[in-house]
């Protein structure tokens, strides 16, 4: 079974696609079969980051049944072992995915015969993004060291919880009462402990069950676009706070330092870790990839990628 890592986080422009492409490339280079799936539906551009033209085959072929198996929608990239499933040629209204299509995609993702699957998710907290994020218990959040981004990350976690709780409520025979409380969730000032508390207020018997369900998540997070003059303990602080005030486990994977050349690489449609393998940021990405896979990168390869 493939290890699946959805890559999300509330805000746009924090580098989700960049990090997905970079981690995919690094881990593939270490000899694993990796597929990255562009699930930023309606705004997909993962192929560009990999220096590719938009592939004709992709999620569209799977949804319109030209191909039966999602595995066959994965096209090879310029990097050996790294495959891409693009959503570029999906129908114009793909952003409003049909529910049945979504379930079909999620089900197929779980069955992909790869070592690692990375899902590049869109910004925001719409249902598609959340449901794709819930494909695995080990989602990775990307944020930048800015208040707005951190705030959005918290909101993202809360909505993930909310979505999960809703799924659980639907799936299990909970009180009717409980099913009617979702309006309480719409309060924008909702704090993380509130979500569970609201549910528990109505049905305290379910506490151990719900807690244990939420404690199964092992969130990971990365601070991207980190700058030298910032507080170097930010990541640990974030980890500490999340572990204390949310119901799951959080792991800080590391910083990716800001480098203007990342922008250059994107503009010239080349993969940054390929073009600038000796930079601090490339080393950061390598460390993160090693932490996720628990692979010690082979030293002979440190000169490439």
């Amino acid at each position, binding site marked *: 079974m493939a290890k699946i890592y959805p890559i999300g986080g509330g805000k746009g422009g924090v580098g989700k696609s960049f990090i997905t492409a970079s981690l995919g490339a690094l881990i593939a280079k270490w000899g694993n079969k990796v597929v990255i799936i562009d699930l930023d539906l309606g705004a997909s551009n993962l192929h560009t980051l990999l220096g590719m033209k938009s592939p004709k085959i992709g999620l569209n072929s799977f949804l319109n049944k030209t191909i039966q198996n999602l595995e066959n929608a994965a096209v090879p990239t310029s990097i050996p072992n790294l495959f891409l499933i693009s959503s570029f040629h999906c129908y114009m209204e793909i952003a409003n995915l049909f529910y049945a299509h979504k379930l079909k995609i999620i089900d197929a993702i779980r069955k992909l015969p790869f070592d690692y699957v990375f899902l590049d998710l869109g910004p925001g907290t719409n249902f598609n993004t959340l449901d794709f994020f819930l494909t695995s218990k080990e989602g990775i959040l990307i944020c930048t*060291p*800015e*208040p707005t981004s*951190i*705030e959005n990350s*918290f909101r993202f976690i809360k909505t993930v919880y909310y979505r999960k709780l809703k799924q659980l409520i639907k799936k299990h025979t909970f009180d009717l009462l409980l099913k009617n409380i979702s309006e309480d969730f719409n309060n924008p*000032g909702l*704090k*993380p*402990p509130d979500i569970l508390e609201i549910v528990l207020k109505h049905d*305290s018997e379910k506490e151990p069950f719900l*807690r244990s369900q939420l*404690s199964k998540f092992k969130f990971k997070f990365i601070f991207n676009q980190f700058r030298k003059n910032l*507080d170097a303990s*930010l990541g640990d*602080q*974030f980890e*500490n*706070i999340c*572990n*204390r*005030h*949310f*119901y*799951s*486990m959080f792991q800080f994977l590391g910083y990716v330092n800001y480098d203007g050349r990342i922008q250059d690489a994107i503009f010239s449609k080349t993969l940054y870790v390929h073009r600038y393998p000796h930079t601090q940021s490339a080393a950061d990405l390598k460390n993160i990839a090693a932490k996720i896979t628990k692979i010690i990168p082979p030293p002979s390869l440190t000169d490439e990628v």
Partner: protein
Amino acid sequence: MKKFDELNYYEILKIPTDSSYFEIKRAYKEALSLYDEDSIITYSLFSRNERDEILKKIKEAFSTLIDENKKAAYDQMLIDSGQMKASISFGEKPYSSALRSSDRTIVDESHLHSRVKEKFSAEDIQNLSKEMLSKGLLSGSDLKKFREALGVDIREMHSATKISVSVLNAIEEDRFDRLPPVIYVKNFLKTYAKILQLDPQKVVNGYFKTISLSHHTEDSNSN
């Protein structure tokens, strides 16, 4: 995952129980800045009230742990409620006395434990426990009734839990004004519940619901 209000003072400051004065002070400063309203991490996470509550607890933790006497009393409470091993805090004191007292506890507890367990299997006791916990509200007199039903004497309870008889009485008689600070009461209740084979969290929740209701009705009665 433990919630913040279930953390003990050491966990709040993220320090080991044998931390030095300087370590405690450094940890305290770090905790203050992490929960400061200008902290980039937490500014959006808490309401003013929640933040004040957290900061209050951090200050409580600090003022307790830097004061030798208060720290010793607090450690004792942690040991009594089984959250800390005796040998850690008694490390510098004559070892034998610590060893003896903990040995005795184990013997007493195991004896009491088997007796309670035997009684607990009886149907009427089971029903009584179910009925008591199903209400959501739990008073001290409920606890007392249950303890007596199991045939556990208050002296026995005292020697098994190391909670003083006066505090046990205050708990069982719902004299909330005589109770020690919240964190102690929570831990006492958990220990108490465990001895009687009750779900500790349910007992704490039910008891504190009763306390908060009583605060609503007699708001003026503050200490």
